[in-house]
């Protein structure tokens, strides 16, 4: 499980964790709570090139659909195969088993410009 302090965050409530070979993307604990019971997740296919800020995934609750934006530009390496059968993992484990997809060929400068945990927590307070 990625340590929260080692992740970077967006104002649209995604987290990114750079592991040895790719950037793992998911939604934050705050986001999963706001979304409610997740019943369907539409994820990007491997090989797709995405641009920072682009809506690339959809997380759906009983009540509504939520766009999930690419926190970084890059190429989709894989999406979480477990979510097709178990979308509720996004609620149970937003920052671990509920990860959405992985990106390769990301730009370190783009990553460094995202919010740190402290900045994201501050943003949540001011946005509330």
């Amino acid at each position: 499980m990625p340590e929260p302090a080692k992740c970077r965050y967006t104002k649209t409530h995604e987290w990114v964790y750079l592991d040895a070979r790719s950037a793992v993307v998911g939604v934050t604990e705050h986001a999963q709570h706001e979304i409610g019971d997740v019943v369907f997740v539409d994820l990007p296919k491997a090989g797709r090139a995405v641009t920072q800020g682009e809506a690339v995934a959809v997380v759906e609750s009983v009540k509504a659909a939520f766009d999930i934006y690419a926190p970084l530009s890059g190429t989709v390496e894989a999406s979480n195969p477990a979510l097709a059968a178990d979308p509720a993992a996004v609620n149970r484990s937003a920052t671990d088993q509920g990860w959405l997809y992985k990106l390769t060929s990301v730009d370190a400068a783009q990553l460094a410009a995202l919010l740190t945990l402290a900045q994201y927590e501050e943003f949540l307070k001011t946005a509330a």
Partner: protein
Amino acid sequence: MTSAAALRTTPLHQIQKEAGARFVDFHGWSLPVQFSGIIKEHQAVRGACGLFDVSHMGQVWVTGKDALALVQKTNANDAAKFKPGQSMYSHMLNERGGVVDDVIVTVFGPERFFVVVNASNIETDVAWLRRQAAGLDCAVDDQSAGTAMVALQGPAAKEVIGAVCPEAAALKRMGGLEARLFGEPCVVTRTGYTGEDGFEVVAPNAVIPRVWQTLIVRGGSFGLLPCGLGARDTLRLEAGLLLHGNDVDADHTTLETGYDWVAKLDKPDFIGKAALQAQKKAGLTRRLTGLKLLERGVPRPGCKVYADGAEAGVLCSATYSPTLETGIGVYYAAAPFPPPGRALEVEIHGRRFPAATAPLPFYKSLSRS
């Protein structure tokens, strides 16, 4: 859209806020969409019981010498067949057979009828009833503003209702009674909008918090959960119950909704009867039809439906069904009507999902027999 400041709240708003409710704007009201989670609440109602605040709904008394005449004139169902203490689901129709509103009328005597109407239609319905009452000796008394309402729904509801109204547990399905709860005049009916057994309690605004709290406390050991509009919608759609404004309106008739049993065409007369007879004779050109997704996905109202690649309709209501664990929805299919199991596609976010027509209701409870 109404601004947040102008939203109306029910007498239960504060209690619900403290219980962790999340609120949404519903026809100018701020109402709880969920407490603990839509799926959990939905399952509580199917397996135990749930408590809903439906205070936004309207309550209208029709009383007087010609009260029955007005009820008969304005309803497709036949109130003359219902005895005091019985509730009737009905459609109020316009001259074209279109559904002005779907209502529950409880008979309390030859000159006393209690009509529960949809929140968004209160003004329309009251104006309609008053207009039709011209020349009749009866009163149309809109009690909506001073009256609140809760729905206790689920197989365990009959064990819980006694906490506020012991005599209600003896009501039959679609039965109703007047009682004093906490010293105030109230109406309790064995009705609901979830497809499960259950009760609806109508009480003055000042009393409803005590009704709510008492049911919450008594229901705790039965697994009762406070429930919001989110679960209310998934429960009613599974049960094939209409949502006026989405599934039916003044431009769609009772026959087109598939609720043929509501329209008693053998009744002497009612507004819209001639139109329904003519429609029946000519044959329906469209009918509300159920569909299920065959692949995981969540259909929404407004999604387009395709048959053999051609557009075949638009979803009126649609959601994820927690009981069936698949997407469900209803749309108006054109004649000739597709048999159950006919292959369709539903377009969601630009992608077509395989679907098939399905008989209504999607779900039938064992607790209601």
